[in-house]
């Protein structure tokens, strides 16, 4: 890009990019651990955290109450977070800002990669697209269709894939690749 490539950056710029990429990677690991402990990573766990609280019994029109016996094992024994709408709004605004800014910085570094324009465009789009699918999936799960929880997993995976590709290619070009460009 404009004759500037990652492999041609000054040492201080290379150190800056490297530390940023590592920092974001550690942050992503912490976020992954938090998602695992607070919500869970299976489709069922994501769904149960995001889907609206549904009645356990069918109540007919005009019926004011219903009761049934349950096994105590039917009540969740894990301390998991149920994400209600106000928390979903909070999560959406912080994550849309935060992840988009992270995706922006990752993309900014990756713009100076020597890959072809189309490959670069596709790879740097992944974290952005992943974020939108991730947060969009949360809202769809909550208000449209509980099965949309799969989008949350897909979105998160796309973000992670984008980060990994950007980081691996960038680090390679920053520190290993040596050839000159036209």
């Amino acid at each position, binding site marked *: 890009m*404009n*004759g*500037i490539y990652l492999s041609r*950056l*000054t040492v201080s*710029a290379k150190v*800056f990019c490297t530390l*940023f990429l590592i920092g974001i990677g550690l942050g992503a690991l912490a976020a992954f651990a*938090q998602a695992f402990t*607070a919500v869970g990573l299976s489709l069922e766990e994501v769904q149960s955290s995001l889907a609206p*609280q549904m*009645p*356990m*019994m069918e*109540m007919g029109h005009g*019926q*004011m*109450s*219903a*009761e*049934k*016996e*349950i*096994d*105590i094992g039917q*009540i*969740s*024994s*894990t*301390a*998991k*977070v149920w994400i*209600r709408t*106000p*928390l979903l709004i*909070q999560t959406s*605004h*912080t994550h849309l*800002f*935060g992840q988009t*800014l*992270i995706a*922006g*910085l990752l993309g*900014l570094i990756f713009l100076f990669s020597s890959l072809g324009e189309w490959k670069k465009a596709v790879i740097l789009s992944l974290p952005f697209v992943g974020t939108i699918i991730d947060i969009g999936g949360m809202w769809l799960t909550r208000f449209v269709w509980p099965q949309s929880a799969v989008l949350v997993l897909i979105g998160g995976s796309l973000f992670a894939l984008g980060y990994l590709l950007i980081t691996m290619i960038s680090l390679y070009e920053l520190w290993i690749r040596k050839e000159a460009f036209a």
Partner: protein
Amino acid sequence: MKGKVVRRVGGAMIVFVLAASAALAHITPPVVLVSDREAVVGLLQGARKFFVREVRLSAEDRQIIQKQWQWNADEEFYRFYLGRDDQGRLVGAMIFLTEFTIHGPVRVAVGISPDGKIGGATVVELTEETYPWLKPLIDHDFMKDFVGRDSRGNFAMGTRHVGAHENMALFYGQVVATLIQRGAILFETAIVKRGGAA
């Protein structure tokens, strides 16, 4: 030319980092203190069988609650967990109730005895921001103050806490106390008055 581009890119990066920090600073992760099952078992001690009763409030119920307690009970339905003994007699009921505050949700499990009096309560979930405020009160077992009170009882924070804790602690203590009272209100309205407390 090259130096100019590098300076611009560097400037853009700094702006991004500062903006990202500001955005991420808003996150207040939830803190879950007990699981739902722990709360149900803990508050329905002595129960041999467990039941779920889901109740709807009529427009009249909502009106009475609003008039008497100044609370808009606007959930579509409320879920009680009931504990019964071997003979099927009601040992107690419990309900999870949540208040959404500016610093995140506070979720409380409220145990109610068959006569409509508070049997116990436990904070189930709050946030990293609100937990340090409420922890001293939780450590002082402040929810015990409300045991034995019914929906018409006094659910203001006791004098032993006023002055002993900071304002935010007292504010969130009152949020919890109000949720405990709401548990009693709902039990009285949707179960006792409908003859379901046997």
